């Protein structure tokens, strides 16, 4: 188990280094950053001086090393638009994005898991067909369109919920539902198929033969084993949520990191884009690491097989 964790940590380190290389090169692909920092009428001498001062004349690997060492200390430079440290802006907005992503994940799991179990247990019933048809539509709906439809119905027509912004729980309902819908559909289908497979296993048959109550058979024996693939997929989908917040935050004017990065792109605020991308990607890698470790806990065979 220890060796597996070490291996996973090493994997995390090189992935983070890889991501930082990509994020670093964005600045260089986007043109001369010095030109973005100085007014359009700056003289050649001023440009050259600033370039020298900021070290842009150094070889690329020296510049990357400098960027990486600063990034490690949380210093991503200053936003060209807001004139404050990029990290400060990100940390200010991150809680809002995490709140939205976690709420979406919670909504998806709370609806999908019971629905998936019910569909598997009552296979071929009206509930099964209805929920699987619903899941198919849920998977086919772009989440930002669902967001707009929810606004049209619950804010514009019925006036029940606020159209945008962050505040109390009522602000969270529509964005989390819109963001979580396709995950809900995916989880419901997955839970159903895994439960169907598990319910056919010998140990479930044995549990039933022992005369255990059906609720115990499903809740204790079947569900625990069905949870393993669900945890993996839920963890992997966290990346989807991070990506998804970019659009949903724009639809609902949610003051999170996703909206910040979209605005930064339009403002050509590359240091902020670079910092946001790097922070979100590292966050995603860390969540994946946590999920993998949780996976080992849920299924001890994994670490055993890896070590073998």
């Amino acid at each position, binding site marked *: 188990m220890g060796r597996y964790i070490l291996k996973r940590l090493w994997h995390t380190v090189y992935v983070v280094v*890889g991501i930082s290389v990509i994020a670093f090169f964005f600045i260089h692909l986007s043109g001369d950053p010095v030109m973005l920092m100085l007014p359009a009428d700056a003289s050649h001498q001023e440009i050259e001086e600033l370039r020298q001062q900021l070290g842009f004349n150094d070889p690329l690997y020296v510049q990357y090393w400098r960027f990486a060492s600063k990034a490690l200390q949380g210093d991503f430079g200053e936003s060209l638009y807001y004139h404050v440290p990029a990290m400060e802006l990100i940390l200010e907005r991150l809680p809002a994005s995490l709140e939205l992503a976690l709420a979406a994940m919670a909504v998806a799991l709370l609806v999908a898991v019971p629905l998936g179990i019910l569909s598997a247990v009552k296979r071929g019933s009206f509930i099964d067909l209805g929920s699987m048809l619903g899941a198919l539509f849920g998977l*086919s709906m772009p989440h*930002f369109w669902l967001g*707009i439809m929810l606004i*049209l119905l619950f804010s514009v027509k019925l006036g029940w919920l606020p159209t945008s912004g962050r505040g109390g729980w009522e602000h969270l309902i529509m964005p989390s539902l819109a963001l979580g819908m396709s995950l809900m559909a995916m989880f419901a289908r997955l839970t159903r*198929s895994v439960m169907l497979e598990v319910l056919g296993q010998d140990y479930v048959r044995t549990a039933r033969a022992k005369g255990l109550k059906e609720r115990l058979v499903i809740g204790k024996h079947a569900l625990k084993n069905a949870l393993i693939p669900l945890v993996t997929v839920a963890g992997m989908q966290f*990346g989807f949520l991070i990506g998804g917040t970019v*659009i949903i935050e724009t639809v609902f004017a949610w003051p999170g990191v996703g909206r910040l990065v979209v605005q930064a792109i339009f403002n050509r605020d590359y240091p902020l884009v670079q910092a946001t991308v790097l922070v979100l990607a590292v966050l995603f890698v860390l969540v994946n690491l946590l999920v993998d470790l949780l996976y080992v806990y849920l299924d001890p065979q994994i670490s055993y097989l890896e070590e073998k």
Partner: protein
Amino acid sequence: MTSRVAALAPALRLWAETLAELRRSRSAVVGGVMLLLIVGISLTFPLYYPVDPLAQDLMARLTPPAWQAGGSLAHPLGTDNLGRDVLARILYGSRVSLLVGFSSVLVAEALGIVLGLVSGYYGGRTDSIVMRVADVFMAYPFMLLTISIIAVLGNSIFNLILVLGISDWVTYARTVRGSVLALKEKEFVKAAHSLGTRNRTIIRRHILPNILSPLLVLGTVRVANIIIWESGLSFLGMGVPPPQPTWGRMLAEGRMYISDAWWLVTLPGLAIMLTILAINLLGDGLRDALDPRLRNV
């Protein structure tokens, strides 16, 4: 020649079985017919609906669909804030979505097949490098990767296809690599090897035809995802540039008039949903046909 036929036989048998299975799958037939209809309409509509999607008629701005009070048959699905015909814009938008969706998948598949084949077949350091790069790409949230590249490269239909394709190669490369690793151990590949057949020939004749079926399923599912991402990028203003109508931009523009003109935010989204639904239905049928273990699930 005989060995070539022998190598192709399992692949051909699989395709024939898949087709037969597909015809039996209700979801595949419904999805396939829907998709054919959508593609057919998108290719032929100028013949029977020759309306300019860019023509403005400010006198007829925000006209509701024909079935609603104030609507007219001249604009069956109504008009937008500049008096442009919504149906014509949806029809033209379908071309962008389908073109970007299918072309990006082709780019991603081409990249994924080459890298997955090389990585799986040759193994060693090449495999290690390709897979480590794949890990980095996998760790990068897809939407962030695409918008940050688009932000740097600029938005054109070509860049969009390229970026979406490049961002999506990993899934294919991993699938191909897995299939190649399994095929390398098969008798017919080992036999070809011991007969002195060149690696490139083994890959082309014996391995490639046998790895295409999982890629077909994956490609179908990914077209749906790419169309959603394309419309999302368009919605954010990072898709195909104006004046070309796209479903995503129609939604973004329509959002300003959400309280007066429901059709501007509803109908383009319905078009996206129906297209994705058709592809998902076909994908489900294909998956069941190609993976018999999933048939009863």
